[in-house]
């Protein structure tokens, strides 16, 4: 398994990966609570970025409405817990199922009626907004007044009910992110991954080669939706409150795709790197600008950083860094 995961990765890449894993595993012992929160949120966004990357990075399907899957996951698991006491470890299955179903519906409409490019992206926004307003009026889950998950501050970590210390949530986020990395690696190395890459590069050629484009694309959407909704379950039990206005917001959709694009679209490490650049960048800018009374300067600089990366490193940070460090490029990380 591990051998297959590491595959053709070179020695230097293996060493770098091992070092990164060690640092991340040991982090809670070394950092203070605030940094731990920043790291947890970075990992959370890394995971969301990885899930989004399955659709856009692998299969070339641009989604600008991924917040809807985060929200669906959070609301299903949260509501089942609040109303029926169903622990999230079980609730995550219906959560992922519903998200997958919605993803399938969008995919079906999009691909059957061959809605492409920007139009497909707008279709995802339309669905996300539609669902947001729906949840604003869905009183069983609190409507726009929000859904609160009862909190008790146990010192014991309870993975079944997702109640516990910040360290537990950190390792949970780390686990999610590592699992997503492994899954992405396996997918890319497998037949599905090759089909996706073929479709991404040239859909008509892929079709001519006999690839069932519809099925491959559907697989990408459904998988990406289900993965993202799992992140939503984490969101629900980490933040303990959900408001449609926040969780289905288009800004969340944009925030979660910034990481993978900045880090390197379609690469395995890119989404993680992107999140670990952007979240700390945002914190750093807050720290630097909090002494100034000028509200807004932080976001201005943040936007400027993104513009600079887009213009000067359009391939993202990871391919550039990988080249600099002379790391071997595993398949899928080359483009």
């Amino acid at each position, binding site marked *: 398994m591990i051998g297959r995961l590491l595959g053709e990765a070179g020695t230097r890449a293996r060493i770098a990966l091992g070092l990164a894993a060690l640092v991340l595993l040991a982090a809670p012992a070394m950092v203070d609570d605030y940094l731990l929160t920043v790291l947890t949120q970075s990992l959370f966004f890394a995971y969301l970025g990885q899930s989004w990357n399955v659709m856009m990075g692998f299969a070339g399907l641009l989604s600008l409405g991924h917040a809807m899957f985060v929200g669906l996951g959070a609301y299903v698991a949260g509501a089942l817990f609040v109303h029926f006491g169903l622990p999230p470890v079980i609730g995550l299955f219906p959560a992922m199922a519903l998200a997958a179903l919605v993803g399938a519906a969008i995919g079906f409409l999009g691909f059957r009626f061959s809605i492409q490019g920007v139009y497909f992206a707008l279709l995802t926004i339309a669905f996300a907004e539609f669902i947001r*307003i729906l949840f604003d009026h869905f009183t069983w889950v609190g409507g726009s007044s929000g859904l609160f998950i009862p909190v008790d501050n146990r010192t014991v970590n309870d993975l079944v009910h997702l109640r516990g210390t910040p360290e537990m949530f950190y390792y949970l986020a780390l686990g999610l992110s590592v699992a997503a990395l492994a899954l992405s690696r396996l997918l890319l190395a497998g037949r599905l991954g090759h089909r996706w890459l073929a479709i991404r590069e040239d859909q008509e050629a892929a079709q001519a080669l006999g690839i069932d484009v519809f099925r491959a694309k559907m697989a990408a959407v459904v998988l990406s939706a289900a993965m993202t909704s799992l992140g939503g379950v984490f969101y629900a039990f980490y933040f303990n409150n959900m408001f449609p206005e926040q969780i289905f917001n288009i800004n969340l959709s944009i925030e979660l795709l910034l990481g993978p694009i900045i880090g390197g679209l379609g690469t395995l490490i890119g989404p993680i790197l992107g999140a670990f650049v952007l979240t700390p960048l945002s914190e750093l800018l807050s720290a630097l600008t909090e002494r100034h009374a000028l509200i807004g300067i*932080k976001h201005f600089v943040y936007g400027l950083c993104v513009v600079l990366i887009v213009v000067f490193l359009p391939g993202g940070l990871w391919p550039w860094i990988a080249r600099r460090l002379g790391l071997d490029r595993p398949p899928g990380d080359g483009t």
Partner: protein
Amino acid sequence: MPTTKNRRPSRRAVIAGAAGLAFAQPFAIARAQGAPLKVGVVLPRSGPQGKIGQSCQQGYDLALPILKELGYPEIQYMPVDTETNVQRARAVTEKVIQDGAQIVTGAFDSGATTALAQVCEQKGVPLVINIAAAPPITEQGYKFVFRNFPNGVRIAQDALNLQRELYEYKKDAPKSAVLLHVNDTFGESLKAGLLGLMQRIEMPYKFADVIAYDPNARDLSVEIAKAKATGAELLWTVSRLNDAMLLTRELIKQRWSPKAVVSSGPGFYEDQYLKTLGKNGDHIISLVPWYDPSKPLTRYLLERGAKAYPGINIDTNHVYSFEAALICADAFKRAGSADPGKLRDALAATNIKNNVSIGPGIAFDAKGHNGGLGNAGIQNRGGKLKVVVPRAYADSEPVYPMPAWDKRA
């Protein structure tokens, strides 16, 4: 302490109130602290709620010199910004505690406050909530969370009772009403509370229609046309600032003058509204958590507020932020140290009588909620805000029915 209505409070009277409190705690005085208490002030300073965060900060800033005059030990603010975002709220609270905040206060918004409460409880650092109405916040069994703000249920209840008092006093009541509310966290929970209470509290009217509108509404023409078509005599709104302005203009343009326009929630009493609408903003009544104008400390706060921020009316945001600072300083004084555990115990034993808000004073129940806080009916009058109900401490006569839009001088 004499509280005759029209007497200006002297600084002496205010300070005597505080001194009275101080004598009850002679030992605390003796152990006057050296270093100031570090208070993390978590507010939405940017993002859609940025304006409100700035009003709250003015309330906190007004508190500093007044607390000093009242003989409270020095407190020092560590301002942080939630950017009107729950995720940020959580991270910045962690950070401000990491940077040395010994007590935390904020954060106006119920969602953000929930995040703050979790962090503070986990860290064992006390949280004094300035504004957040969602009832669940103090239903979680928290030990370190204290809320000095009426919850949504109380706001809804008072809104009904205050209106009954008003209509009985004027011996004239609207026979039908329409509820027009913004479909956001606050609007939705208030609507739910109101509709529930309407079953139990006898009101002179029933709602002919309940209309919800989008928080991002750019245009309220359809909403007002729909409300107007019910022919209701009372328009009851739950809104935010921008839609309050849109809504009033739309009322005038569609030439609909109901007998009364009442509002639960912010918007209609805010300075921006009063300045923008001028005479057209007059006579609308807001039923909101407010200050008690008959309390000496209120008069003093209003006087200082007028000096520090000329042209700005002191409102809910200022009052409850001011009181949050007061609560922090008071607990610090009695605890005699900045130790979080001792601060918490002192907070739980809070009993402040010399305060500003409506109600018997500041004290917390076992859940950390101040259930004694009340609301008032505020009427806009020529750019000023006048308390018209409860009659017990109103400072002005209510104008009801409201003069029609085209019959205003």
